[in-house]
């Protein structure tokens, strides 16, 4: 995978647990954001991405989302020129047939983030970083999703806000599985039961978060800062990756089981 000609993502293969928080870890530039963008269809990709058994890897972004994915991107993706209320209203999804989701769940969003109700008329661009992150997460909670993807939701936030965001994610994860991209290992330890680690554009480790973080050597090798180690083991060729694909598209194999 080439992003601005700088980064290559090749054989990424991991599962998201059917409940709770799964962390996607890795050093800066390991390909975490590219991986979630590939899941969302925001960058071209090949491979297999399954959501509750349904193959979504060939769908365009808006259809991926309608399958039930809430996405809070790395830069928060809020619309600065729109009000808080308009930002939320944009995330409302029309439900066809009405069998499933139902009304947008403003009650939940306003319960978790009372501030968003109070600031409904304010332009989102004038909010603080923490408040903007609330809008971003609030948008993912508005609809009934099968998966929530949060890409570095605590980046650049004050410690107090970080723990608020963590609370909300923990609460959200009670109802919906969450895929969390995060650098803050304390937060990961607290929230995530399982994790996948990316290095050099490949999955380098999958398993129990607590175990990985307890193994100091492995944690340093996979996540630590310092000199870049060549990874043990060759490149994984992902089992479902469709053959000899030119390295211009990421091969992501992801499964979210119901």
């Amino acid at each position: 995978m080439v992003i601005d000609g700088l980064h290559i993502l090749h054989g990424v293969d991991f599962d998201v647990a059917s409940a709770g928080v799964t962390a996607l870890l890795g050093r800066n530039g390991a390909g975490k954001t590219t991986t979630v963008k590939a899941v969302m269809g925001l960058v071209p990709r090949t491979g297999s991405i399954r959501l509750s058994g349904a193959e979504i890897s060939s769908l365009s972004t808006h259809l991926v989302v309608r399958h039930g994915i809430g996405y809070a991107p790395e830069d928060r993706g809020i619309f600065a020129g729109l009000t808080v209320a308009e930002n939320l209203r944009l995330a409302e999804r029309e439900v066809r047939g009405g069998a499933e989701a139902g009304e947008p769940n403003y009650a939940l969003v306003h319960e978790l983030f009372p501030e968003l109700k109070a600031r409904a008329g304010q332009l989102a661009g004038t909010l603080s970083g923490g408040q903007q992150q609330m809008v971003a997460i609030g948008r993912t909670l508005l609809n009934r999703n099968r998966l929530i993807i949060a890409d570095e939701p605590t980046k650049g936030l004050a410690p107090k806000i970080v723990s608020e965001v963590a609370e909300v994610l923990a609460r959200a994860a009670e109802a919906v599985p969450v895929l969390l991209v995060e650098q803050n290992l304390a937060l990961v330890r607290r929230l995530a039961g399982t994790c996948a680690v990316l290095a050099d554009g490949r999955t380098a480790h999958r398993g129990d978060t607590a175990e990985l973080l307890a193994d100091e050597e492995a944690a340093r090798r996979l996540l630590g800062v310092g000199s870049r180690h060549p990874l043990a083991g060759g490149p994984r060729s992902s089992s479902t990756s469709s053959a000899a694909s030119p390295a211009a598209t990421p091969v992501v194999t992801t499964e979210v089981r119901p």
Partner: protein
Amino acid sequence: MHAALRWWPIAPLITLLVAPYSALPVPGLLDGPLGSPGSLQLIALCLLYGALATGYDLLLGRTGLLSFGHALYFATGLYGTDLGMLELRLPFAAAAAFGVACTALLALLLGSVSLRVTGIGFSMVTLAFAQAGAILVQRNPGGVTGGEEGRSAPAELLPSGLLGIENTANLYWIAVGYLVLTVAAVHWAVHSPAGRVWEGIKENERRVEVLGLRPYGYKLVAFVLSGALAGVGGVVYLLLTGGATPQAAGSDATLALLVMVVLGGTGTRWGPLLGGVLYTWAGHRLGDLANSNAVADLPAVLRVPLSQPLFLLGALFVAVVYLLPGGLAGLPARIRAARSARSVRTPTGVPAARPTGGTPA
């Protein structure tokens, strides 16, 4: 590449140079035999536009700058030289130097302004400047430009070897010379250190900035060089057609250059030349076709579009953009790719090629 193969352009060049001595009839392509004044005039125009397109591609294909105002610099060279003779009574050579100097200066001035904005803003600003030039020429300030009529070059100030139908071959050789100059200048510039920065700017301007280089200066150099080459083209055009007309300054002239470059293939060495030659030739032949009896006898549904060269060219342009991304120059590679894809069906299940770490694909 085999060393001898690198010099293949010499062969067509020699062919071009000796063409005036040939009486070879080329039915279908040209009306008269190869060496006849009419044919030489048409070929010279084709080569002139091929060279202009090559110079324009320095911006579009090499630096990634979509300028909509290139005709302005062509017209400045054209009018600058013509008026240098008519108004300042300069001899031709001095007037030509004056015209090209004016062009380079104007390109420097307007380039330094328009390059302050990037992307499509740049396109619009260049378009606006070119439009200003076109209006100025049309409105005939002080009776200098001759308005709609344009102004003929003064015969008494032109060297006698460049006058009259019997000297068409000399004009033709000048056009060939201009083509060689442009191709060589573009080739040299693209392979200079600045050329590599242009390539970087085209791919990703941010990254050039990250490397600590200021893209602005490099883009300005490309803009001025490309403009100056167009100015020289204006001088050649003045000789070929014997006068300056306002059509040379219009936005249609820039769009024509754009069509030529895209038709031939942006960012390739021979694509713009090929596109320019084909476009100019087709423009003339389609003009003939439009007035021919074969078209006049057709039913209106076919006759009306066929009688409009600009319609055909516009439609052709859209078709090229759709069906032939990369232009004519990209065609051989596409055919080869299509053929190899058919013969070597990639078997599924082959392990993915090991990525070479960090090398951008």
